[in-house]
C-alpha cells in the first residue's frame, strides 16, 4: 500500500496515465450511471406517490422524498455499488492479467514502481470523477422522478418542483460526496489489491475479479453504515 502512494517515477507519465483512467473509470461509466439514475429516480417517485393515500399529506412530499432518497442514499451508495461491479471488475481483471502475463514483472525489472504506476492514477481518477458521476446521478434521479410524475399524472410538475426545493439542507450533498469519495477509494484499492496479488492463470484472474467486486460491495455497505452514523 505504501508503494502505491509514493511519488510517481515521472510526473508526465503519471499525468498521461491519469487521463487514461479518467476515460476508463469515469467517462466510460457515464452511460450506465445515466440510465440507472433516471429509472431509479422515476421508481422512487412512483412508489412514493402510490404510498401517499392520506389527503393531509401534501403531494409536494413526492418531490421531497425523491430528493432525500436520491441524494442521501441512491446516488452515492447504489451508484457506488454499480461502479464496484463495473469499475472494480475491470481494475481487478486488468491488473490480474498484467500479473499473469508478466507485464508487472516487466515494469518492476525496468525499475518502475509498478504498484504506483498502475494503481495510484486509478485511485486519483476515481476519487475525483466518482463525485462528479454522483452529482450527475442526483440531477438525473430528480429529473427521472419529475418525468415519471408528469408522464403518469401522479403529481403536477409544480408540486414536484416545490417538493424537491423544500427543506433542502446543503449538508446532505456534502455527506453524499464524502461517502462517494470513501467508496471510490475502497473500490479501487480493494479491486487493485485482488488483481495485483494473484498468481496463476486466467481462472485466477476471474476469481480476482469476482473477489474484487464482492469485497468492494461488502466494504461499501459496511462503511455506509459507519459514515452515516458518524456524519448524520
Amino acid at each position, binding site marked *: 500500500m505504501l508503494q502505491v502512494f509514493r511519488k510517481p517515477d*515521472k510526473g508526465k507519465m503519471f499525468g498521461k496515465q491519469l487521463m487514461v483512467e479518467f476515460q476508463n473509470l469515469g467517462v466510460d461509466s457515464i452511460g450506465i450511471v445515466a440510465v440507472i439514475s433516471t429509472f431509479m429516480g422515476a421508481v422512487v417517485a412512483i412508489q412514493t406517490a402510490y404510498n401517499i393515500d392520506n389527503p393531509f399529506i401534501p403531494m409536494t412530499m413526492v418531490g421531497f422524498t425523491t430528493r432525500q432518497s436520491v441524494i442521501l442514499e441512491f446516488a452515492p451508495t447504489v451508484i457506488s455499488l454499480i461502479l464496484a461491479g463495473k469499475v472494480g471488475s475491470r481494475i481487478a481483471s486488468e491488473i490480474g*492479467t*498484467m500479473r499473469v502475463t*508478466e*507485464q508487472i514483472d516487466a515494469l518492476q525489472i*525496468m*525499475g518502475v514502481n509498478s504498484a504506483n504506476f498502475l494503481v495510484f492514477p486509478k485511485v486519483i481518477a476515481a476519487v475525483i470523477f466518482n463525485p462528479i458521476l454522483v452529482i450527475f446521478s442526483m440531477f438525473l434521479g430528480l429529473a427521472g422522478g419529475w418525468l415519471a410524475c408528469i408522464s403518469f399524472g401522479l403529481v403536477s410538475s409544480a408540486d414536484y418542483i416545490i417538493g424537491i426545493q423544500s427543506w433542502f439542507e446543503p449538508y446532505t450533498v456534502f455527506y453524499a460526496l464524502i461517502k462517494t469519495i470513501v467508496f471510490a477509494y475502497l473500490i479501487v484499492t480493494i479491486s487493485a489489491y485482488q488483481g495485483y496479488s494473484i498468481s496463476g492463470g486466467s481462472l485466477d484472474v476471474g476469481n480476482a475479479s469476482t473477489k474484487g467486486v464482492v469485497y468492494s460491495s461488502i466494504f461499501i455497505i459496511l462503511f455506509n453504515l459507519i459514515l452515516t452514523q458518524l456524519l448524520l
Partner: protein
Amino acid sequence: MIDAKNISKSFGDQQILRNISFHFEEGKTNLIIGQSGSGKTVLMKCLVGLYDVDEGDIEYDGRSYSKLSFKKKKKIRQEIGMLFQGGALFDYMTVEENIMFPLSMFTRESYEEKLKRVNFCLERVNLEGQNALMPSELSGGMIKRVAIARAISLNPKYLFCDEPNSGLDPQTAGVIDELISEITHDFNMTTIVNTHDMNSVLKIGENIAFINQGELWWTGNKISVLKADNTVLNDFIFATELTKRLK
C-alpha cells in the same frame, strides 16, 4: 559481468536453489540450462531482483545487489533489459509505445529523439515500419523481437532472456538466437539466457551453467557440453532421438 555467490532460495519448505555460484561473463551469451522445474526461472528471477535470495549474494560488476539502497537498486534495474517467456508486451500499447515506454520513464529525450531510438531498435530486430501494430496483431516471433527491441531500448548492460524460443518454430527460434547473440556482441552486454532448447545451447552457448534439482551440476561451453562425461547432463543433452543418433 554478474557474479552469483552461494545463492539459495526456498518457497516454504521446498528448497528450489541450493548454494549456486556462477560467473556470468561480459560480452558473452551465458546460458542457464536444465530440465523444466530444475530452478532455472527462479535463479533468473533472483538474478534480476524479482525474488530476494535467502542466502548468498549477487554482484553486478562488483556492486553487491543485496547491500544496495532502494535508489541504487532502482538504478541497476535501469541497466537491465529482460525478454520474458511470453514477451510481456503491454497489450494496451502499440509496438512503438512499448519500445518508447522505458525511454519516456527514464530519459528526458524529446519525442523525435525517442522515435529515432525506437526506429533504430526496430531496425535492429528486423521489424522496421511496424510501429503502429498492437501486440495482438503480432505473431509469436514478432512478439519476441519487439520484446527484445524494448529490452535494448535503454542500451542496457545486462540482458536477461527467459526461454526466448518457447512456442516458436525451429527457424524462428534460430533467428531469435542469432539476434540475441549479435546484440550481445555488438553492445558488449552480459547476456543470460534461460533455455532447455538444445539448438540454442549448441548455437549460442559461450558460457553454460547446467542446473539440476536446484544445484549447479556442470559448467562449460557449447563445445565442451558435447564431450562432457556427466551422466545427468548427457541424459539432458541427448534426450531427443536426433541428438541420440548424432551421438
